[in-house]
């Protein structure tokens, strides 16, 4: 059973180079089939540390140097640089929002409803006279505050389930495979709107629900790498030395399978930002009046004839954010995943 499930992943090797940034379109299809060759090839591999533990110092510095040069590579590529700059701007906007935003994003101003751009309101106002520029700046906070916890939740849960699935007996593994497939049998957005409709929108539960939709994808990714890594000699050796399953899983296997997961997670940030915006657009995400980009777009949609500027400015913010994170994520993947870089060069 397990063999056949693995072989299932081979055809996907074609699609792995495309690990689409918009994974909602192809959720899992790429990622789960990406057997992540980097686990062996990655500079971060701790295999070397296992063999000669008595000389950690020079090795570590070499490793850091290697990693630093890779990050330099990310920054110096034109796509990576552009992505890095956009992401940096968004993060700075999120951190310093109160200093940059000219108005309070919640301040209602009935006298200036649905106004276009002016020297007073750079991007105009919405249906309640709130300054759109300020709302967009504060919106970057919400986008990151929802997307990043969602990714972290998905990564932690997916990692645990995936490593247990890959390391356990075939029966347990089959159970997890069915569980992952079951979790994927509803499109993420439909799953999220259903759960949110039942329990009601909440800023705190939102990242968890969004994170759950990534669990099967991360779980399968880690499972596939674990299946390969657990056959290595050092795992057999530590088992022979009497290491417990728990210590083998988390001390020896985990460091060797985590790299592709991090790359995938980095590439999923724009997916989560879009996801949150979509849910808020439907009125099921971040509860109003919190300034989320999805809300701004919703207001713009509802007033599209009178005030088209709202959709345009809100849309530009969302597009720039997803573009920045996608460019950075893809450059990270290309640099840290040599095999994909060689084959894909997208």
């Amino acid at each position, binding site marked *: 059973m397990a063999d056949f499930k693995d072989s299932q992943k081979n055809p996907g090797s074609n*699609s792995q180079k495309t690990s689409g940034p918009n994974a909602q379109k192809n*959720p899992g*299809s790429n990622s789960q089939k990406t057997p992540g060759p980097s686990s062996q090839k990655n500079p971060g591999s701790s295999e070397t540390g296992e063999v000669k533990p008595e000389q950690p110092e020079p090795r570590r510095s070499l490793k850091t140097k290697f990693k630093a040069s890779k990050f330099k590579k990310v920054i110096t590529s034109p796509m990576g640089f552009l992505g890095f700059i956009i992401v940096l701007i968004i993060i700075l906007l999120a951190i310093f929002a109160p200093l940059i935003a000219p108005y309070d994003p919640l301040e209602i101003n009935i006298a200036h409803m649905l106004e276009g751009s002016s020297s007073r309101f750079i991007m105009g106002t919405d249906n309640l006279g709130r300054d759109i520029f300020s709302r967009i700046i504060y919106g970057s906070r919400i986008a990151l505050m929802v997307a990043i916890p969602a990714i972290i939740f998905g990564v932690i849960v997916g990692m645990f389930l995936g490593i247990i699935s890959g390391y356990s007996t075939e029966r347990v593994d089959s159970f997890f495979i069915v569980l992952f497939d079951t979790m994927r*049998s509803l499109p993420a957005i439909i799953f999220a709107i259903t759960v949110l409709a039942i329990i009601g929108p909440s800023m705190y539960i939102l990242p968890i629900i969004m994170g759950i939709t990534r669990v099967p994808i991360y779980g399968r990714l880690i499972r596939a790498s674990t299946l390969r890594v657990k056959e290595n000699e050092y795992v057999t050796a530590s088992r022979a030395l009497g290491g417990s399953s728990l210590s083998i899983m988390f001390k020896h296997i985990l460091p060797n399978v985590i790299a592709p997961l991090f790359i995938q997670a980095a590439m999923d940030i724009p997916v989560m930002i879009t996801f949150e915006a979509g849910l808020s657009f439907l009125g099921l995400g971040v509860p109003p009046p919190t300034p989320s980009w999805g809300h701004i777009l919703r207001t713009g949609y509802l007033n599209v004839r009178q005030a088209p500027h709202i959709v345009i400015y809100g849309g530009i913010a969302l597009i720039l954010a997803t573009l920045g994170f996608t460019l950075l994520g893809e450059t990270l993947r290309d640099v840290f995943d040599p095999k994909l870089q060689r084959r894909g060069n997208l």
Partner: protein
Amino acid sequence: MFSYILRRATLIIITVLGAIILLFILFQFMPGDMATILLGPRASESLIEDYRQRMWLDRPVYMQLARFLGNILRGDLGVDVLNYIPVSRLIMNVLPNTIILAVSSIFLACLIGIPLGVFSAANRGSPIDLLTGMLSISMITIPHFLAGLLALLLFAVHLGWLPAMGGGAAGEPLDQLRHLALPAFSLALGWVGYLARLTRATVLEELGEDYVRTARSKGLPEKVVLYKHVLRCSLIPVIAVIGVGFGNLMGGAVLIEIVFHRPGLGYLIYNAIQTRNFPVLQGGLIVTIFLYALANFIADLSYSYIDPRVRGE
């Protein structure tokens, strides 16, 4: 091949069953009493009691589950609590719209995306290639619903070329086509970029193969090599990805249908949530689960047909 199909089918049936049971559990968590929610606050005590008995709400949960699964097997998805129309009929009315939207989007995406990818690969490294690359990535990063909003703003509100809402009058194909244009375009946009990049990558990979060198050394024109030999081979992974992605298009279709008020499965589900019409919501979700599983099953089969190694025989 047959044993492979059987194994996949079994796994998919288990998955669907698991998903439906999960859905049932999810609905158990709904705050409040089901009968009161469904019948509304003004329902009398006796009416609620009668409904509870009729719907087995007074029985143990496992019996409710058995009844639930039994009804689904018989194709009975319950009755709409607002209009007393069978949910299955409601869904059958709108389902073709969603399928038409998904199919036409994929078709449109292939029509634009694949030639774009080949063109890009043929001009590798040129400014045109760079431009197409940037264009593709921009198309991928624009969320579906935002593409829909911007298309609505430009073509329906600003230019007034195409209708902004609805699915078109029944029995008038031309009107329906006009109503389909913007939603299909918005849903296809991301896929155009995606397919362009995928095709470009596979074509570049194929160009390094021996048979290409042979074809070139025979003196075949570059166009023949590219379009007759290379494209045919490089389309295999593209077709496979389309198969997998088709099911996922459903997710995108939900938001697009809402933006354009287009009657479809996604719009039905969203409206059911808004009006708290839970039988319709439940029925819509079950049909989505089935469609999704079916799309994945077909994708699996096409994979195994294209690449026999998958079957693991």
